[in-house]
């Protein structure tokens, strides 16, 4: 019974969301507000069980007092609610921004820059493909030059670079289209073969 009720709730909400494609309407508004509420509640409970309990409450109870620091930073964040001392929340914010900057500085330099440069410079110019690859990377980089006007030779190279970028965009677009349809097929499959058969008239569709 719970399963059939669940299938009906799921199916109706699915249809409510699809109705947005026609135009904004009360059904979509209902689903949208329910979705925002339910998902915010979901993440709230998720954070409680998967972050606060294992990463703050448990360690503190076991006497790892280093964990007082994030607790204090968290409380600083909440100080925003008290206008007079609200400025202290910036300390917590400064910590997060600093941490994020340091982390991304390193990871991007390694995985995006050095790894890609390394992969490109180990190519031998013994095939058309490799020559094209190297030209594509170099001209693509020229497109991103900010401090030189794109004129003359530089302009021509930048133009070639943007062509490579456009082919890349078109190709990735075409590549992902397939996976996007799988998702829609999955939803349609749920509606046709799992939900409709709960209505006696359509029982024959069940698979």
């Amino acid at each position, binding site marked *: 019974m719970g399963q059939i009720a669940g299938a009906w709730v799921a199916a109706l909400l*699915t249809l409510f969301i699809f109705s947005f494609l026609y135009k904004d309407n009360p059904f979509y508004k209902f689903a949208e507000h329910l979705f925002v509420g339910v998902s915010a509640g979901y993440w709230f409970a998720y954070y409680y069980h998967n972050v606060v309990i294992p990463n703050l409450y448990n360690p503190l109870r076991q006497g790892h007092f280093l964990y007082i620091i994030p607790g204090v930073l968290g409380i600083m964040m909440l100080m925003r609610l008290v206008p007079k001392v609200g400025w202290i929340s910036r300390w917590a914010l400064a910590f997060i921004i600093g941490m994020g900057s*340091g982390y991304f500085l390193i990871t991007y330099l390694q995985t995006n820059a050095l790894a890609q440069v390394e992969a490109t410079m180990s190519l031998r110019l013994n095939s058309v493909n490799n020559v094209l690859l190297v030209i594509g990377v170099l001209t693509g980089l020229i497109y991103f030059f900010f401090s030189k006007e794109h004129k003359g030779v530089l302009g021509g190279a930048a133009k070639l670079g943007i062509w490579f970028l456009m082919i890349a965009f078109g190709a990735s677009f075409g590549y992902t289209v397939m996976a996007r349809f799988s998702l829609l097929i999955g939803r349609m499959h749920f509606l046709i073969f799992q939900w409709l058969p709960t209505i006696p008239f359509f029982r024959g569709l069940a698979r």
Partner: protein
Amino acid sequence: MKRQAPLIITFLAGFAMILGYFIPHEPFGSLQQILNTWYMVVAAFAMILGVGNLVKLHSAKIRRRSPGFGYSYVLLAGLAAMALFGITRGIEPGTVFYWMWWNMHVPMSSTMFSLLAFFVASASYRAFRARNVEAALLLIAGILVMIGRVPLGDMIWSRFPDVADWIMNVPNAAGQRAILIGIALGVVSTSLRLLLGIERTYLTGD
């Protein structure tokens, strides 16, 4: 002090992350992991601000009887049910939280996600037009890869999959690499501006 302290904290936190990368010796070796845990705790605290903001805005809507205030009841009910059941009764299979998650959150999420199929169609109808050379390249690469990846393409011409693969592996790879290297330099420069306190708009004011 009020103005300087945040800049110093930013610098120290960033510098600690960088040191943790280069120095395996403790306590530096596990710095990245520790600071990341701290961040998650702060983000969890901040969640109270976010959810509080949501509750405040929608209860104000109800109080003021603003247009569509009825939906605010729906939102608050969903939020309260999910958060309260989740925290008091647990989130394992068999709980109310799990039932709501499986029959409300999951189907709405995947339906929202599946809307992409429609939007991909309308976007390509509009955008894939050979207005100029750039748009034409986008169009041609897109169509060739699209056709090369389904059985239909294979039926039309058996080499279509090879063409699609070539586009993915040569011009696409070149373009992506240029983008990735550019992004890395942008990130490095932005991070340095933040760590050195040159970009500080996020901290100004009293």
